[in-house]
């Protein structure tokens, strides 16, 4: 299989359409308004997104979707990243729509997917708790059996768009065993008719993406609302992790490239000491380093998205590589973006801090660059063991090495 990079005709069209749509429907002034809004959600904008086919972009046509693929989806996310777009798009499609499509019963799919495509459903995922890290052991919210139902108790944190959402996927513990990945179950909750659920906004740094605390107090959910199998929620969580991590790479690259463009434009117009500051070598060489980083970020991101689309066995490793690299690069891009803008870049009114915050939050989600690198190291370990490497002979008694032949 040979991967071809770049965009095909359809993707070029999607990109152009997305850029125009976002420029018209959500210019930076509108982004700022949505930041100020408590829910950060515009029903009007959401409806328009449904009308242009974005909400069901990767859902099959039989449910009202556009039937496009994961690589196409990253083209759209890339554009949304450029605009630090405030929207429950990732929450709805990546966190809930795609998992329902892949693990749901036919009934669940018929119930929810058409509503996602039409814009009637706004969805989110309640997975994280105290530590905010995506790992099985941290899931402590309990779901206990009561007849044909379960009752949910506990507190979820960092739940995106919870106030706008009318459907919520909840990761709860249904069994405690030695292995924390066992005994997690996912429940789909229609939040419009529920008692005992308290949603409170968190005061967080990236105001373009609203996060909430959600407290469950004996919230009943029918057993038929379980997604997948009882106790077997973790593999679905891994699916969500893989796809959303790749999605965030696309968003980060889009945001990083836009922040870099703003910075280069500024270097070309800002005058100091009688010349434009972009003529200073101290800034030129740093700008060149950022350009280099973004080039490789985009390549890794596109490669990871292709691997997911193709269900390639290397998909998980390529996503970890992309996330690590895109995170490192984009964090540097926005930090330098502020620095190179000088004082103006540090103000609330300038947009650079929106990019700075979004990228740092994205980098942290599903594990930052350091964590992702460790995943890569583990993959290298596996490859190393599989390949039976180590046939080359070492000199015995060498300082600093074990010194034994491995043959």
């Amino acid at each position: 299989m040979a991967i071809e990079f770049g965009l095909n005709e359809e993707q070029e069209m999607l990109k152009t359409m997305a850029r125009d749509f976002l420029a018209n429907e959500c210019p930076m002034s509108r982004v700022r308004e949505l930041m100020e809004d408590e829910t950060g959600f515009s029903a009007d904008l959401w409806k328009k997104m449904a009308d242009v086919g974005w909400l069901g972009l990767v859902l099959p046509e039989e449910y009202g979707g556009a039937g496009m693929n994961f690589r196409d989806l990253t083209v759209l996310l890339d554009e949304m990243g450029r605009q630090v777009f405030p929207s429950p798009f990732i929450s709805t499609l990546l966190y809930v729509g795609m998992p329902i499509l892949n693990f749901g019963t036919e009934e669940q799919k018929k119930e929810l997917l058409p509503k996602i495509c039409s814009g009637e459903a706004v969805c989110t995922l309640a997975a994280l708790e105290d530590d905010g890290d995506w790992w099985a052991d941290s899931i402590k919210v309990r779901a206990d059996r009561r007849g044909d139902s379960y009752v949910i108790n506990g507190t979820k944190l960092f739940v995106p768009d919870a106030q706008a959402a009318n459907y919520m996927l909840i990761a709860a513990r249904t069994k405690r065993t030695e292995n924390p990945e066992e005994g997690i179950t996912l429940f789909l909750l229609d939040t419009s008719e529920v008692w005992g659920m308290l949603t409170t906004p968190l005061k967080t740094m990236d105001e373009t993406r609203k996060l909430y605390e959600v407290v469950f107090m004996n919230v009943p959910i029918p057993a038929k609302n379980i997604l997948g199998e009882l106790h077997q929620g973790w593999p679905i969580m891994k699916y969500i992790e893989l796809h959303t991590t790749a999605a965030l790479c696309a968003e980060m690259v889009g945001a990083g490239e836009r922040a870099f463009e703003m910075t280069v434009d500024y270097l070309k117009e800002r005058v100091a000491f009688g010349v434009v500051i972009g003529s200073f070598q101290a800034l030129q060489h740093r700008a060149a380093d950022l350009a280099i980083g973004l080039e490789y970020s985009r390549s890794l991101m596109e490669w990871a998205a292709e691997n997911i689309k193709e269900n390639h066995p290397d998909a998980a490793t390529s996503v970890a590589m992309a996330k690590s690299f895109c995170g490192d690069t984009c964090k540097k891009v926005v930090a330098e973006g502020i620095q190179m803008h000088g004082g103006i870049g540090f103000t609330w009114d300038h947009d650079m801090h929106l990019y700075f915050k979004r990228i740092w939050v994205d980098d942290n989600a599903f594990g930052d660059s350091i964590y992702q690198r460790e995943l890569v190291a583990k993959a290298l370990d596996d490859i190393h063991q599989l390949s039976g490497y180590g046939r080359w002979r070492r000199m015995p008694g060498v300082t600093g090495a074990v010194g034994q032949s491995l043959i």
Partner: protein
Amino acid sequence: MVSEESEKLQALRQEVRTWLRENLPEGWGTPAYVPPVRGTAEAQAAGKEWSKKLYDAGYTGFTVPKEYGGVERPRDEQAVIREEMSRTGTPPGPGTLGYLAVAALMRWGTEEQKKRWIPKIMTNEECWCECFSEPNAGSDLANLQKTGVRDGDDWIVNGQSVWTSSSKFADWGIVPVRTDVNAPRHRNLSFFVFDCKSPGFSVKPLRQMTGDAEFGETFFDDVRIPHANMIGEEGQGWYVAMGVLEAERGGGMRIGEGAAAVGVTTLGGVENFVELAKNTKRRGQVAWDDPLFRQRIAQFAIENEAIRASTQRMRVKAMKGQLTGHEQSITSVYRREKNQHQANMVAEMIGASIQYMRGDKRALDEGSWTYTFLRSRGNTIETGTTEINRGIIAERLLGLPRTRM
């Protein structure tokens, strides 16, 4: 846009893979392979033999038309061959330096000049050297001091070059010369091919910090170069030289096509680092279990994939005509610095044993790590310093104004 590879391409991939397995030296790509010392007759002969093999197999020479001895193949086949070669870190052939002459000749040479020189570069029957850098003109190439004075059908050239690779073994050389001392910068140079056996041309080995003499200092003492050997017009030498440098910097994008992979060694395979880290203990701890080394090695794996993916992406852009040619500066800076970072990591990981050089019985892997460590210092200087390349990225790709001098 992933397409299933046709059966024909799959068969070719298999063919190349098998061929490489059978023809690459024993232990290639691992420290078990100990290359001949660079700059020696042995290394020169090995390189020549390898180039010939590659050419005979039809795996090289794609940028040159058949009439000049090139190998014409469809683009997708070229891509498969290059990919397989870069997977194994196969050394480029034919003669890297000859290819620089090809870059100049293809664009600026007359029909007669092309027919005379290119075919023997392709078969590697004749070796070439490049006399560009001077003691006082490295990054600032326009400051070249070599002079040429017209005398009948010849030019009489005087001056000196440094860092001339393979000068000891070269049959031909390329050299920009100041032919008009009164003309302004960038219009005062002419570009020549000269015969290395010409009277007055001499070579003194230049020993670098590895202890080897891979390069030479070359002296032009009233060397006569026929006017017929001028490439391009009189006064155009700067532009011809720039074209050659662009080809040289493109090393990362044209693996297997002979542009400069100078000094970028083949020990970069991450599995070698994993293996080394697993077998290295420092104060009782296995290096591979130390998060700092794990992180750095994983980073190199990521960077290797980034370069691989970008090379493919640039190739697609090139086919669509979306490349300016300056993108190779990105690859150049990144690969060369990565090479250095890797070497530094190894040096820090294996500790005191990095001191042992080849020839000491305690040297790890015949001293190849130490050699790579020392040699990599040159990587960010040769073929244009990384500073020059960053300047190209800033000015040509980002459109920033010319640097204030």
